């Protein structure tokens, strides 16, 4: 039983007092910031990345993973209580969760979200542990052509799940890829698109771009809206769902877990796609006889997507850990964190750093357990936090962002870059161009170019290499099929409907 041995090693690492403490800190701070409306996991992680610099790599990654689940979960709490998604994957939780809260069942909605998330998280952790080794084996068979094709697949995946216009999402990917190329070209040493600014020769910082596009732009948009917030704090109701609730929610949790686990592995997938898909599925299964109807406080509409997004969040670690390729923006940040700690992401991590690899996996389950333990009793605290007026929150958030961005390179220039991308992010918001594909393209840009060049060098300039190598061909075919499916008129209509409901 190699799996058990590996997990034993993982738990031995994750259960050390120090790592337990960092996992706890991560989950706590992650939830704390995730609860604040308008700050999703990406911005939260970007903001808190510097807090992990001083730690040893394993603890740092465990803490970052904890921050991620915490932020994810905090987002759901906000969705249910304030009808404002803390982050994009809890958009669908708003639909029925908030309606449940309005009917005085906020407690049950929160409880179901917690229980569903825990079940899904536990299942997904086992899945990660079971699938990581064989996928790592496969990854060693990957050459540059396969990596390139895999990234094409990932980017197509990202397009499919962007909620707006398909063609604009492709545009955002291309834009991201191009922005990723800014800086010194590793092969020729030429500083590209740097306009003789020395800081730009190192390229645009990922955290600066992500924080600007997601964090700053969001703050500007929130300020511009001057929206009215209604917080359901007076009567949360009992937190534990009744037996009847559980019986009704159980199938949704099971379906959400499975669906989320599968969608999380897909490149470009993750929590967002998982929660949307689960909501659509639950609604379809319940049909017209749903009571109460979906959108009016059906508890399956909370339990399903919440389980799915947590499962998806977890399994999206698989491509990151085995291939070193980030399936979404959060994983891109995790890769950034690994590089800062001098760990080259990729299939070799499992063999060269087994305690880090398995410790991280084991900590996923521990983190999920902590979330449940932490959140049910602390819900009152989160509610208090939600009562803090926005006019106090955003200056504080800005302060943390500025300190975080600066401390990455101890460089003021990164703050200007962040401000620039904040402006750009606000333009994207106004033009309804989704920023998530841009971020993914930004990360993959340099990797794609590098692998394209290597593949072409190996094939002596013959581009058919991508189609003659079976693994590469398979990946490209999957990408083509995905694209065809999405472009099919009937699917496109359905896709429109699915995302429309969430608006």
């Amino acid at each position, binding site marked *: 039983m190699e799996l058990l041995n590996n997990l034993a090693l993982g738990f031995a690492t994750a259960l050390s007092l120090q790592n337990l403490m960092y996992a706890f800190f991560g989950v706590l701070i992650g939830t704390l910031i995730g609860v604040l409306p308008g700050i999703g996991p990406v911005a939260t992680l970007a903001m808190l990345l*510097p*807090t992990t*610099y*001083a730690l040893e790599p394993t603890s740092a990654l465990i803490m970052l993973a904890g921050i991620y689940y915490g932020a994810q979960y905090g987002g759901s709490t906000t969705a249910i209580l304030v009808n404002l998604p803390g982050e994009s994957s809890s958009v669908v939780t708003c639909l029925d969760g908030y309606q449940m809260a309005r009917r005085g069942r906020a407690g049950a909605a929160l409880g179901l979200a917690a229980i569903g998330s825990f079940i899904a998280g536990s299942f997904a952790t086992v899945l990660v542990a079971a699938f990581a080794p064989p996928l790592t084996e496969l990854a060693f068979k990957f050459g540059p052509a396969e990596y390139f094709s895999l990234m094409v697949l990932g980017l197509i995946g990202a397009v499919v799940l962007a909620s707006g216009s398909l*063609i*604009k999402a*492709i*545009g955002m990917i*291309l*834009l991201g*890829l*191009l922005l990723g*190329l800014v800086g010194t*070209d590793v*092969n*020729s040493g*030429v500083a*590209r*698109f740097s306009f003789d600014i020395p800081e730009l020769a190192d390229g645009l910082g990922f955290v600066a771009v992500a924080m600007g596009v997601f964090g*700053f732009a969001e703050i*500007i948009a929130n*300020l*511009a809206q*001057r929206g009215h917030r209604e917080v359901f704090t007076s009567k949360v109701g009992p937190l534990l769902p009744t037996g009847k609730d559980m019986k009704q929610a159980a199938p949704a949790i099971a379906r959400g877990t499975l669906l989320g686990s599968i969608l999380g592995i897909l490149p470009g997938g993750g929590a967002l796609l998982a929660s949307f898909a689960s909501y659509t599925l639950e609604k379809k299964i319940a049909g017209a006889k749903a009571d109460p109807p979906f959108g009016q406080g059906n508890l399956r509409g909370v339990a399903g997507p919440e389980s799915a997004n947590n499962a998806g969040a977890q399994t999206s670690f698989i491509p990151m850990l085995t291939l070193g390729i980030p399936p979404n923006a959060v994983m891109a940040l995790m890769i950034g964190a690994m590089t800062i700690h001098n760990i080259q992401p990729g299939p070799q991590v499992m063999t060269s750093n087994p305690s880090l690899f398995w410790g991280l996996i084991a900590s996923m389950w521990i983190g999920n357990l902590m979330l449940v333990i932490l959140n049910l009793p602390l819900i009152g605290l989160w509610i208090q936090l939600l009562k803090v*007026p*926005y*006019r*106090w929150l*955003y*200056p*504080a958030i*800005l*302060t943390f962002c*500025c*300190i975080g961005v*600066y*401390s990455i390179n*101890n460089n*003021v220039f990164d*703050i*200007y870059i*962040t*401000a620039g991308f*904040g*402006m750009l992010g*606000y*333009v994207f918001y*106004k*033009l*309804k161009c989704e920023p998530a594909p841009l971020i993914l393209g930004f990360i993959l840009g340099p990797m794609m*170019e590098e692998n*394209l*060049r290597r593949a*072409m*060098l190996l094939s*002596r*300039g*013959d*581009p058919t290499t991508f189609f003659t190598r079976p693994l590469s061909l398979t990946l490209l075919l999957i990408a083509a099929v995905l694209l065809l499916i999405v472009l099919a008129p009937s699917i496109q209509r359905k896709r429109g409907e699915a995302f*429309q409901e969430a608006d």
Partner: protein
Amino acid sequence: MIKHQRDFWSGIMFAVVGLGFVVFAREYDMGTAQRMGPAFFPTVLGGLLALLGLVVAFKGWFKRAVDGTDGTVGSFDWRAVGFVLGAVIVYALLLKPMGLVVAMVVLIAIASLGSHEFRWIEIVALSAVMGLIVWAVFIYGLKLTIPVWPAFLVN
């Protein structure tokens, strides 16, 4: 008349940026198919983006929005943009010469002015609380190397 302004302007943005990358990439070497130069990938991607932008703009010109909105971009809230980004830029300018404490207080003050319901007393209180948190977490706890006090006081 532009039927769908958001799409039209998105398309123009893509086209201009794509073209920009193609133009600036001309300074670099294209290389060969076997040994691609630094200009190859940006030129191809920039070209694709420019083309795609034209398509989006073209569609925006002729086709109405399908999502039920009128497709207009809506006015920019320059006040919010100015105060938020202005605060950040002033922070960046002040950080090295004046240190974290001064820069942070100024950041909080300017940013707060962007809200329609700010009160001076709150800005002072917020600055004090944030100062304590930032010092405890980043300076004392994480020992980040950030200049805390104005340079002329320390030296």
